[in-house]
């Protein structure tokens, strides 16, 4: 099975000549994704399978292993990847971006690298796959490398990715501590001291955080996502961020043995801060892909907060609660992969149809693109955390596990974690603000540009792709219990206790947290009752009050001529958030004077992290570089002198 995945992924990666027919290859890629989904599902129930591949360097063969945790992420990769491939088959047909063959190659290398990251069982293969993934995605980001802005975005991404990779490398170095055995198996069996474990944890948090976009390391995300072609953004945001979460979980739950409670607290705090920050900034964006990128930061923050909570519970030996928090975490990973991919594909469709990315130039597309709008609505409702869809399930579970935190035997945590919950609630509520803004401005209202009247809907392949993702959103939303039961082995592996017993205490339509009398939720009942009430009400009204219906121009409080420019712009919609959370922003604003004949309003929002963290560091590096630069002269003779002196010194010292 393992061999098959590696071969299959590689086989898909081979570029054939007539790449113009992107259709063929990306469709093949879809098949690969579907197979991977199947493998993931199968792997969830099975025992861990491992193999040693005779590839790689001499004496350093590749170890691969599929356990429930990697199976779960393979499932995620497969489900999202299949949809993105199907969508790409249509998207890349109509040009846009660079050389199609190159894109095809990189795209599949990217997919294969992510697969390898998930199944790698030694640090060497892991890092190799990790870097391949980073490189492939970097080249995909700069597909349109003729635009300077995109090159800059790519550079920032590359830089942060490398910082992260160094931290991960150091973490693995510490993990093997003197044994020189880089397999994960060996790492699992070494028990490090408390300090070394803590160091590994912090390094892993930084390293994987750089890829996932935890708070101070998130800067590349809102730059790189808009720069990349939409299917690639979908894949990066939907799946690649999750590989970082996978790595974090793998290191902190699986490879490290003695978890300490404050690790969880650190992760929790960083996660909550990230979630809040992402939500506020997402509300202010005027570019639809940047908006989604910030929303990804928010969701990753939620995931990290869940993982942190699970760590706290696990460290105190409360494994059932840890499993509950972990269930919320993993489910939210998958959910985010599904609905964020769906929404990025929707932006791809919109961009294809209108060649606009700015929210200020869209609007009213629900009438031109009913398919995209309908499917995007499902994604929007799901990501806004509304029942009966999947986003609500994971958030509900997470809130439940937060509510159970008072049973922790630490009175400080008892009191602080609930207040953290409020921050989470704020982030979640703001995210529904953000998503109303996104959907409302893109799809509802009047078209803000003339050209939007010519927008066209997506074709069959894209419909299937987006429909597949929407179907997952609905199914997981309606039957979370069935799905969580299949995930049970993952919890068993990571924290030693599953949720099977507590889930089995009521039937599959009711999701419960630990005990049914404590809390339960049934999405199916929600959906059934809502649909039933709608049908009954509609029928009764039609029978009892038969009335005429008439179409007329919008009333608008009787103000008269309605024009598309009178609607809220994206900027206007975000204004209240800007006003309230001003403290957290770096705002540059210019208000025109009331007597100005040609008033111009100008406002720019910058990430304060740049100003406070990155620029000082960059200046420091520059200064250091200029000092070092003093020894550089460019003349060969001088470099020879350097080598000569070094040689002499070495001779003197050693002999």
């Amino acid at each position, binding site marked *: 099975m393992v061999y098959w995945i590696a071969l299959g992924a590689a086989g898909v990666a081979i570029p054939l000549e007539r790449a113009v027919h992107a259709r063929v290859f990306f469709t093949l890629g879809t098949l690969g994704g579907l197979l991977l989904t199947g493998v993931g599902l199968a792997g969830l129930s099975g025992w861990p399978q491992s193999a040693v591949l005779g590839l790689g360097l001499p004496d350093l063969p590749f170890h691969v292993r599929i356990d429930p945790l990697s199976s779960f992420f393979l499932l995620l990769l497969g489900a999202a990847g299949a949809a993105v491939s199907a969508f790409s088959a249509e998207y890349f047909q109509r040009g846009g971006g660079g050389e199609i063959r190159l894109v095809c190659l990189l795209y599949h290398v990217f997919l294969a690298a992510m697969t390898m990251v998930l199944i790698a069982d030694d640090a060497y293969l892991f890092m190799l796959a990790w870097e391949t993934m980073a490189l492939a995605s970097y080249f995909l980001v700069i597909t349109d490398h003729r635009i300077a802005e995109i090159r800059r975005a790519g550079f920032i991404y590359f830089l942060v990715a490398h910082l992260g990779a160094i931290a991960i490398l150091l973490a693995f170095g510490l993990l093997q501590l003197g044994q020189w055995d880089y397999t994960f198996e060996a790492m699992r069996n070494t028990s490090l001291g408390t300090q070394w474990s803590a160091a590994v944890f912090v390094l892993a948090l930084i390293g994987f955080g750089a890829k996932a976009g935890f708070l101070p390391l998130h800067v590349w995300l809102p730059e790189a996502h808009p720069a990349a072609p939409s299917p690639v953004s979908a894949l990066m945001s939907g799946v690649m961020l999750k590989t970082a979460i996978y790595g974090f979980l793998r290191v902190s739950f699986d490879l490290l043995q003695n978890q300490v409670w404050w690790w969880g607290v650190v992760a929790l705090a960083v996660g909550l801060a990230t979630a809040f920050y992402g939500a506020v900034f997402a509300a202010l964006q005027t570019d639809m892909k940047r908006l989604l990128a910030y929303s990804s930061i928010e969701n990753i923050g939620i995931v990290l907060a869940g993982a942190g909570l699970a760590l706290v519970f696990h460290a105190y030996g409360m494994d059932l609660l840890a499993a509950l928090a972990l269930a919320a975490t993993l489910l939210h990973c998958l959910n985010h992969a599904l609905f964020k991919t769906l929404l990025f594909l929707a932006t791809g469709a919109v961009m294809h149809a209108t060649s606009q990315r700015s929210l200020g130039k869209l609007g009213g597309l629900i009438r031109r693109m009913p398919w995209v709008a309908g499917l995007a609505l499902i994604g929007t409702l799901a990501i806004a955390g509304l029942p009966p869809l999947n986003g609500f399930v994971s958030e509900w579970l997470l809130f439940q596990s937060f509510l159970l935190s008072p049973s922790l035997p630490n*009175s400080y945590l008892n009191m602080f974690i609930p207040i953290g919950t409020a921050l989470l609630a704020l982030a979640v509520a703001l995210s529904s603000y953000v998503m109303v803004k996104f959907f409302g401005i893109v799809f509802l209202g009047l078209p803000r540009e003339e050209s939007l009247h010519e927008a066209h809907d997506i074709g069959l392949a894209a419909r299937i792709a987006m429909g597949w993702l929407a179907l997952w959103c609905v199914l997981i939303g309606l039957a979370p219990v069935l799905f969580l039961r299949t995930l049970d082995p993952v919890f068993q592996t990571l924290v030693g206790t599953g949720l099977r017993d507590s889930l089995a205490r009521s039937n599959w339509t009711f999701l419960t947290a630990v005990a049914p009398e404590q809390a339960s939720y049934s999405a199916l009942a929600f959906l059934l009752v809502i649909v039933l009430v709608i049908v009954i009400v509609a029928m009764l009204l039609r029978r009892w009050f038969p009335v005429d219906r008439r179409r007329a121009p919008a009333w608008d409080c009787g103000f008269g001529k309605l024009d598309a420019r009178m609607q809220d712009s994206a900027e206007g919609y975000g204004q209240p958030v800007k006003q309230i959370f001003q403290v957290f922003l770096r705002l540059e604003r210019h208000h025109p004077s009331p007597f100005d004949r040609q008033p111009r309003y100008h406002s720019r929002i910058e990430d304060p992290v740049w100003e406070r963290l990155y620029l000082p560091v960059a200046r420091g590096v520059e200064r250091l570089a200029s000092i070092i630069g003093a020894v550089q002269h460019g003349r060969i003779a001088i470099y020879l002198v350097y080598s000569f002196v070094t040689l002499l010194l070495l001779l003197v010292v050693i002999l």
Partner: protein
Amino acid sequence: MSSPFVGQVIDLLAALMLLIAFAMLAQRRLLRLIHLFALQGAVLTLNTMVVAVTLVQSHLWFSVALNLVLKVIVLPMILIRVVNRLGLRRDAESVGNLPFIMLVAVVLVILSFNVALPISRLAGTITRGTLGIAMASMLIAFLMMITRRKAVAQVVGFLAMENALFFAATSATYGMPMVVELGIALDVLVGTFIFGIFFFQIRETFDSLDTRSLERLGGRE
């Protein structure tokens, strides 16, 4: 009177103390602040009374009387007169970044609750649960003194701190020894008089009650 019920009443009053402490922290108007202070004194008196009734502690009755006269009637009256004489009736000051201050206060509450937890477990009084609240009220009053610039508000903060201390004493050991209590009461009274005189002096010298005027230390201009 059943014991758990009394305990609950005391808890309720303690919670009110905390609420008033928060309200004082957020209150911008000077006159309202003094009213709140009087209210806090009243709650304190009531609390002491409940303890005195339940435990039949005669010296606590003395505290009750002292509290009632001093903190509910005399001190607020003095303060209000000062405010009137200085023409500050409508005075309000801007309290910088209020949400942040409130969050700091919440952290203080959590901190003092946790610090008080082991102490109150040791104490055998029925009021032991309220020790954390007393401590929190004290810290919040302190925080209020830090965040204010106007001298009168700072004095109110100081007096609120004294209230909290008294409350802490009642909850931990059913009040301080009589002598100490009398001494403190006298101190507070005299202190308030002196503060009152100071207000006029400050005002005459600087034309303002903003304590920033006092921050320039001697001679350096």
